[in-house]
């Protein structure tokens, strides 16, 4: 069992989830509360990683963050090293790749809040940030949990973007999915079984947590 890959995967997923939740709350609120027609473009860009092959996203990021572009050179100037083939680079790729898995549940959750409540809050002087954090977030807690769990799981199971952008560097960019690929490539099926089992257990546990939280709320309502 590659424990280094296991803990790296957990760290990557935790950091990515934290960033995604912080990004997705204002983004989803903007999509739900905003009235500009330009928001359709924001919505499309947010959903793009759902249909884009992960390797394509990984390739674009590899080029963008590498030394051939101004952005990449700027990052090297600031950080002293390129983002590609580093843990930080993986975080950037994971955040972009899992963005729809954080935003879409929140858009659905925020949209389900009764508009009359939002009107009441606005009339009582609440500015958009207060509407979001005093109403939408508390009333859409199940959606927030779903967004966090889905982002976490999606990052845990990520392969194409990680391989393209991070390569396979033990302790820096080798996640469980990459370790599994290596183990299968080396015909080490016993280790591959354990790695796959852990990935499966993580997914099942997280999904059970989501459904349990929904079930307990239903029980309280009844």
């Amino acid at each position, binding site marked *: 069992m590659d424990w280094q890959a296991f803990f790296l995967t957990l760290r990557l997923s935790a950091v990515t989830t934290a960033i995604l939740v912080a990004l997705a709350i204002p983004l989803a609120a903007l999509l739900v509360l905003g009235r500009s027609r330009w928001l359709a473009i924001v919505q499309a860009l947010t959903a793009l990683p759902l249909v884009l092959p992960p390797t394509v996203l990984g390739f674009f990021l590899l080029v963008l963050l590498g030394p051939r572009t101004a952005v990449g050179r700027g990052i090297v100037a600031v950080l002293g090293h390129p983002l590609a083939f580093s843990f930080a680079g993986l975080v950037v790729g994971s955040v972009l790749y899992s963005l729809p898995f954080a935003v879409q549940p929140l858009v659905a959750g925020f949209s389900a809040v009764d508009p009359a*409540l939002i*009107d*009441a809050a*606005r*009339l*009582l002087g*609440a*500015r958009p940030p207060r509407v979001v954090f005093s*109403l939408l977030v508390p*009333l859409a807690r199940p959606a927030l949990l779903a967004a966090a769990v889905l982002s976490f799981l999606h990052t845990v199971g990520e392969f194409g973007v990680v391989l393209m952008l991070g390569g396979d560097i033990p302790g820096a960019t080798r996640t469980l999915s990459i370790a599994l690929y290596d183990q299968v490539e080396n015909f080490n099926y016993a280790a591959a079984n354990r790695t796959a089992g852990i990935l499966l257990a993580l997914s099942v546990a997280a999904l059970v947590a989501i459904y349990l939280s929904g079930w307990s709320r239903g029980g309280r309502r009844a």
Partner: protein
Amino acid sequence: MPDSGLELRIDTRRGSFHLQLDCTLRAEWTVIFGPSGAGKSTLLRLIAGLDPADVAIVAHNSKALTDTTNRLYLDPGRRHIGMVAQHPALFPHLNVQHNVGYGLTGSAFQRHPMASIERVQDMLALVGAEHLAARMPRDLSGGEAQRVALARALAPMPRLLLLDEPFSALDGAASDALLDRLRTWTRANRVQTIMATHDAADALAIGAEVLLLREGRLVALGPAAQVLAAERERLRARL
């Protein structure tokens, strides 16, 4: 008495519905009377700034709230308007006290938190709901929820109060008693009030100025006894 009242110059469409109005409401209390679909709620939402208008000038006591010609649109929270609709829309995750105190965020209340608590208690007492302070909205009856929604709208001391059939869940006697107390309060605090109703008996009982609205057009504006003479005869004939 209000200074120059509520000036309304509105011409706006919602699908096939066309609301067209040009008048100034100066009375302390104005009842907007009309059948369902006449545009009462649409008009109140435009005044509150909750919905955009195609062409509109809305000004209260000479202060412009909406002026589409000058692209002026004051945010609903900065209009000093309190609004209570038929659906109380209480925040379900906050208890009654926190619902009523939601709009008390001014610097005075932040400096003196006790002032906020006192205001909430005063408003709950005004609507006869002081015993409900710790309850959650899901534990309230329809009438109790409407009382709390009224207290919440009054707590920030609005300059203009919009009521859209706000006591529909209260029985006749309770509704009349609450209306009496509310009228005394709005008079004492110089709060101009616009109340929409489709119940002619309500409009006549209040005896306020009546704006008769039909299919989005102003049909008449004047004293209740005059504007609703036909409705009064109809009610009398039914009795």
